[in-house]
């Protein structure tokens, strides 16, 4: 399958990535080769085969709803690149 730079632009937006031109062109070629190789699977007839997401029959893992203490807020905020005493800080998003 042919992969174009427009397609790479589109999936880059979805992925929140912004590749520089040179990197984008290289990536387009690489993705085309990789996806071309994945087309190997088309040789297999999978009509009537159920898609398998989990290999073991584990379903609906339920537990009692218990109140437990949350993590300490200050501890969590310590890891943020930018925070004040009570929140993560990001650029203004709503005028």
């Amino acid at each position, binding site marked *: 399958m042919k992969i174009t730079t427009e*397609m*790479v632009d*589109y*999936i*880059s937006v*979805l*992925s*929140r*990535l*912004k*590749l520089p031109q040179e*990197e984008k062109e290289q*990536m387009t070629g*690489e*993705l085309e*080769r*990789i*996806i071309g*190789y*994945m087309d*190997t*699977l*088309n040789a*297999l007839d*999978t009509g009537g*085969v*159920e*898609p*398998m*997401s*989990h*290999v*073991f029959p*584990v379903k609906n*893992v339920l*537990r009692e709803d218990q109140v437990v203490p949350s*993590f*300490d807020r200050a*501890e*969590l905020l*310590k*890891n*943020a*690149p*930018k925070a004040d005493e009570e929140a*993560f800080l*990001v*650029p203004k*998003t709503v005028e």
Partner: protein
Amino acid sequence: MKEILNLTALQLGAAIRKGEVSPVEATRAALEQIEERKADNAFTALTAETALQRAEAVGKKIAAGELTAPLAGVPLGIKDNICTKGVSTTCASKILTGFEPPYDATLVEKLDALGAVSLGKLNMDEFAMGSTTETSFYGPTHNPWDAGRVPGGSSGGAAAAVAARSCWYAIGSDTGGSIRQPAAYCGVTGIKPTYGTVSRYGLIAYASSLDQMGPLARDAADCAAVLDAVMGKDPRDGTSLDVPAVGLLSGLTGDVRGMKIGIPADCFGDGLDPEVKKSVLAVADVLKARGAELVEFTFPVMEYVVPTYYIIAAAEASSNLSRFDGVKYGWRAEGYEDLTDLYSKTRTEGFGAEVKRRILLGTFVLSSGYYDAYYKKALQVKGLIKQAFDDAFGKCDLMLTPVAPTTAPKIGESLSDPLQMYLSDIYTVSVNLAGLPGLSMPCGFDSKGMPIGAQLIGPALGEAKVLNAAHAFQLDTDYHKQSPVEKEAR
């Protein structure tokens, strides 16, 4: 080199319990060895001071009879994608620079409770994506057998540290071979247990349906002891299985009489290095001499396993890695215009090329218009691969295959051609797709002196069989006792 560095983890544990060696002495010896082996670049973070304090405290508890586990007081290393409270955990990525988790992974808690002493965090391919440990933001790890070669990946730091006698065992993670392949390249023993047997809570996710943690160690008995300590149901991981502690270590008898060892012909065909093939098939002869039966059959899904794996792994990665956005933890880019720009700039500059490639690939196979042709198709083929394993285990108890088509390549050879690197994962990825236990053990050396690994694959929850067969092989051979450090000294 200090004698104690050459002990296995279990031998050191026994010496500590007898009072012949203290955990502090062992920790000091390891820290000195790590310093000596600095050029390996196996560690991303060392916690020398904490390790010595911890060793002191653990030593007292062992002396008081409060800690009696086989590995109490034995120093280890932990792969850098496993959360350790207050200790840098970066996945070897720029984007997680400075991240110190507020909690321990369940596995780390379990090891701590039994008296483990962690020396620090181990280098890896960025976010466990790679087969060489060259994609690390902290630079490549070198293979202790030949510094010009890669240690394999993604748990390359773990395999190199165990091989170089810098620690007695290590915890790695394996999504498509990331414990087994570096174990093979570095001449150590490593096992990826059945999916769900070890809680993934605190393992930073790459592909959640395939990720499992497990040990890399000097031999199968050490691996059994580690698994005994870390397996079990965890309410914090909904996919963890309710399997009882199975006594893997105490079950190691070396008795393989009547065990059927399956040899899938499709795993020994074109593309396999003849020296690797010869050494792996020789494992069958050793087991046969101990009374095992050999069964040959076809395994007709091999050409589909790599594309299926990379579609599923990339899809899950593209979703899992969306949490790294420069807001909640780690590194944030500078000079952004608005929130979206903050995300994009941080991710573009914070992730390396291989991680971006897999995020884009995963986004593509999940995107509308391509979902059915790629992602859904891969999930269907996954069903067929699982079926092929079910058929195989109708004919045998264990499968014997190579771990990788060649021994460790030279540094710089693999990254220029990503597809070629993906293809080298052909013998390991199917095991993750089917959720099975797979072990890698040393079974010889090629003409360049590089270690060769053999893989034993068991049916679901077949850890005991896999470990016992490996133990049987190691009773009759000494490949696992060879050390690159002694080789250098000669």
